[in-house]
């Protein structure tokens, strides 16, 4: 019976997908998918739905930051607005880490994680799959022994980025008189 109803749901999801609203899809694509709930909706999809229905403002998602507000305003054809501090603040991206020696295996964090990024079973040590963790912090409050902490994801040389050029920055160092007179062809 479970299998059958599961199938039905899968079918419903497919149908849903086809019929779903393109505006909603585009709004959702702009949200960071942190699934943290700071926007006061239980996830990015519900917030996207509220935005599509005109029930929510574009300035409620802290992980999306200023850039997110601008993108949403742009899509919805409205003026960007300043961030609503009531929803939190834009912070550097973090990931959760469980102190595996202190973990009592209560499974509460697993239930809280919106993206199933925590592994573990009852009475067994739990661990966070770092690459899947969105840094939503939802697993922190339920932990009865406070063994989860958030750590900042420091960029290393592998994902280092070039900075915005200074007004005086110059790419080619070569002196301009080095171009041959017969020069450009």
């Amino acid at each position: 019976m479970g299998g059958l109803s599961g199938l039905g749901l899968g079918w419903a999801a497919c149908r849903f997908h086809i019929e779903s609203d393109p505006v909603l899809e585009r709004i959702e694509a702009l949200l960071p998918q942190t699934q943290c709930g700071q926007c006061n909706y239980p996830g990015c999809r519900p917030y996207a739905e509220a935005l599509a229905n005109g029930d929510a403002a574009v300035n409620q998602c802290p992980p999306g930051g200023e850039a997110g507000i601008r993108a949403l305003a742009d899509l919805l054809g409205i003026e960007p607005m300043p961030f609503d501090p009531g929803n939190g603040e834009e912070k550097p991206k973090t990931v959760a880490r469980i102190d595996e020696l202190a973990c009592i295996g209560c499974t509460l964090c697993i239930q809280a994680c919106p993206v199933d990024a925590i592994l573990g079973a009852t009475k067994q040590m739990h661990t966070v799959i770092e690459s899947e963790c969105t840094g939503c912090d939802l697993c922190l409050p339920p932990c009865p022994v406070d063994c989860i902490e958030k750590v900042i994801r420091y960029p290393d040389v592998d994902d280092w980025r070039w900075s915005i050029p200074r007004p005086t920055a110059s790419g080619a160092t070569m002196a301009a008189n080095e171009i041959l007179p017969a020069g450009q062809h």
Partner: protein
Amino acid sequence: MHIDSVEQARNAGEQLHHFHGGLHLRHNKKISCETPLAQVPLPPLLFVPLLQQYGGEAEATVETGQKVLKGNEIGCFTHLGGGCVHAPTSGTVTAVIHRAISHPSGADGCCIVIEPDGLDRWEELEPIPNWPDADPALLREKIRNSGIVGLGGAVFPTAFKTDDAARQGIHTLILNGAECEPYISCDEMLMREQADSIVLGARVLLRATGATRTIIAIEDQMGAVNQALKQAVKSAGDDRIEIIKVTTIYPEGGEKQLIQVLTGLEVPSGGWPVDLGLLCQNVATATAVARAVVEGKPLLERIVTVTGNGIRKPRNLVARIGTPISDLVEQCGGYANDVARLVLGGPMMGYALNSDANPVIKATNGILALTARDIRPLQAEMPCIRCGECARVCPAVLLPQQLNWLIRNEQWDDAAEHGLADCIECGCCDFVCPSHIPLVSWFRFGKSELHALAIERKQAETAKRRYEAREARLLRIQHERRQQLEEKKQALRGASGKRKKLAEAISRARQDRKQ
């Protein structure tokens, strides 16, 4: 890829073509080509960075205190076909530390510090002496395990390209000796002095990839190089190797530009030369392949041009990976009094070096010390006047003024659509812009933002998928619970129904008896 294109590519080199734009630049190579190659002596300490290849840092496979022999693997890299890092000499690993490496960010990277024992003792070498008849897969494996990366400066793992070439099948191997960056002459000196090993490398690569011919492309003004290569091809007696001189127009040594010159075909955006049946390798990479297969030696050193008016005696040196750049400068007589800027690489594509204590890596083709009069004076940036000069010289046929505008306005998707990823950062647009707009700096910034954005989007996509899967699971569980509850109720109701019937039957029976 179109069959026609592959056919056309087969005739590579028969007729020479042009690419769009480009610049005639003063070469400035002569000053570093007058003295023969020389080896840099062993420094007291070698700092071997683990970031030596495109695609990320290798993982350290040695620990502090461990003794290593020359050629021992000290770092393992498994992405993109692999590109391990090996000990450039024998000695002791004294530390595994984070320190400044030669990276445009000036960021620190992990380095293996080796104190040489002075003996320079090799590990037991395993060459493949019968390579002309050996299994090509064996040759490719050797390339994979020898830490060979593209020595033209892109440091893309060579094994990835050779494996791909063997899998997809190629007809022509192009060895790129068209070193177009001004001042840099490491390939030119290599071709002059070690032409035999380039030809040997070409033959090994032909065997490894199944290609049937090789073109060694050089610039038309490299007279001595042509002589040396011709001689080497003659003594090898291999008529599959041809030397072709291409017109010197910067940046004709860019992979896509060279292919266009030789075949008249454009490698499509996002495509690879292998789609046209071609494999392009730098000449120095070919010698590294020859050394790996024929002598069994991994890539431990490279030729570095030390040049510019800021160097007393410019020349080319053979330096072990991990040698501090200051050692190379010292061997060239030190800095001139009026040195003003140190650049890693050439004047067009290089970047400012923050310290000469940084080590030589596999990507280090040149060290350029400039004096104030060699440097383009810093001029205030002016607004774009839409003169179109930048688009006229762009070898990738992009619209730099448009890209610049899109990037400044953070219109990332539009910038991507305008081909930002195809920019080869050659610097031509930057060089000619009358408004002194640092275009390349903006494109480098834009490209890394696009890259970061792609990673972010992928992570968001994964998070969304996992969130949806979880929602569906929770919904299903809820649904199942409700269903179970429903069934139980049904069962109960069913049971009470039966009891009622039974009671009725009993009462009917009682009444019957009464009557």
